[in-house]
């Protein structure tokens, strides 16, 4: 990103995501996050867990600047997202791959077009699109579904399309908000394996989830939220670390 050019050492010095005493209170008075601080380094795989209403989704919305913090700062790549101009916000979102529980695919576009959209938004040429969409579809195992519309696919397949769309711009961060929420256990497990593979290939992954069995099975870092605060509570098993 642009601050890399300004500060060549930024890559080593600055964590990818840094929350500094972030509080988010919505206009209707709901306190979604209270004084939350943590950071995520490049290449990490991080679970964000907690009961419903604990502020997990708010956390993701703050990272992609769908919402602004009421107090405190959110730094992405060392830059305060509250200070970004609209064009920089658009740029930030192009470099963050987002996956949602309800997939959020465009129903009137084919799988190919849904994935191509992310490239078009980033200003890719038609030739690039023709090359990279099949590549990324193959990577998520949907090479033969390019011409289908979303409603013709199973939930797991739709979520893979969403992941393909999130990956196609080679994001520095893949953020998945309860990606397995609408999927059966086997499909959820396959999806998690896919996310782990993506992480091994170098992309930082942040996965919000309720699914403790998944969290416990793979032993990655866990950020746990309760009523908007980071908690001391530990998952049953795992190689977790707390936010700093």
């Amino acid at each position, binding site marked *: 990103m642009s601050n890399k050019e300004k500060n060549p050492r930024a890559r080593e010095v600055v964590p990818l995501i840094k929350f500094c005493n972030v509080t988010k209170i919505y206009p209707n008075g709901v306190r979604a996050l209270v004084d939350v601080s943590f950071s995520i380094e490049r290449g990490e795989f991080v679970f964000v867990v907690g009961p419903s209403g604990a502020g997990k989704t708010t956390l993701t919305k703050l990272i*992609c600047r*769908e919402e602004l913090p009421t107090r405190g700062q959110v730094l992405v790549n060392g830059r305060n997202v509250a200070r970004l101009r*609209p*064009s920089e*916000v*658009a*740029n*930030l*979102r*192009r*470099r963050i791959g*987002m996956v949602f529980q309800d997939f*959020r*695919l*465009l129903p*009137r576009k084919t799988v190919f077009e849904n994935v191509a*959209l*992310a490239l*078009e*938004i*980033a200003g890719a040429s038609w030739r690039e699109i023709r090359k990279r969409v099949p590549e990324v579809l193959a990577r998520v195992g949907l090479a033969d579904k390019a011409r289908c519309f979303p409603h013709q696919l199973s939930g797991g397949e739709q979520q893979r399309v969403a992941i393909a*769309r999130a990956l196609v711009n080679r994001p520095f961060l893949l953020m998945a908000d309860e990606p397995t929420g609408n999927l059966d256990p086997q499909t959820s497990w396959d999806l998690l394996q896919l996310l782990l593979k993506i992480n091994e290939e170098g992309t930082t992954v942040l996965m919000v989830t309720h699914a403790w069995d998944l969290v416990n099975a793979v032993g990655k870092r866990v950020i746990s939220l309760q009523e908007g605060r980071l908690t001391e509570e530990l998952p049953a098993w795992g190689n977790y670390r707390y936010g700093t």
Partner: protein
Amino acid sequence: MALRFFWRWVKEAIVNLVRNLWLATSAVGMIAVAVFLLGFIVLLALNAAHFARTVEKGLEIAVFLKDGLKSAEREELARKLAQIEGVAKVEFVSRQEALEKLRRELGENSDLLRGLDKNNPLPDSFRLFPKQPQLVPLIAKEAAALPGVEKVRYGEGVVEKLLRVTNWIRWAAAGLVLLFAVAAVFLTVTTIRLSILSRGEEISIMKLLGATNWFVRGPFVCEGLLIGFLGAGLATGFLAWGYWSLLWHLEETTLFFFRPVSEARTLITLYLSLLFSGVLLGGISSFISVRRFLAV
């Protein structure tokens, strides 16, 4: 770069139209109805105004001369009449000409006038044509005061009433056009807003993928322009065809004294502006309707 974006907008707009065929068709239909109604009213208003003008143009003042006026006196009078403010033209009508005219007007009944050739009871007269119809009473008053004038006739009382009526027609026509224009605008804006409403989710997804406002807005605006073009084009086509065949039929029947507006330039200007406003309205409606979904 800009050209590629533009091309994407047009392509997206067309693809969206085809994939939402039902929605697009109803939007086109609504706009067609709105524009057609507006165009119909404008044509009506144009003809009403044209009618008022025709009636007013027919206004003239007859100045009857005293008997036995010498030709020098007559010419002097003609000059003075021409000098009255607001007089556009002075035309002399001799008593023989007046009789001929009367005979022609009576047609079959012209027998009544037989034998009057030698003993013509009609006086010589001048016809005065006013520059503006409102000036008729004033001109008549001044003309009556000139020497050698026997009597002045202009349809006293009737002219004043007529002018009031033609004025009213003009205002009513303008008011009606305004009313229908406003109705057409609201109908179009609402129609397009509805078609975009169902796609708010789509817009917010694109914004979350990092689309700029124009990236999202462009195809919608293009789509609005296209829908506007199709709707207004349909309406204008129907209107032009309908009006043309009306004119064609009237040509054969020669409607008494009134001829409807048939000047090609006026009509083409009307049709083109209807088309243009439909297109513009479609685009602007889309622009406005998308705006509320862009704040993500």
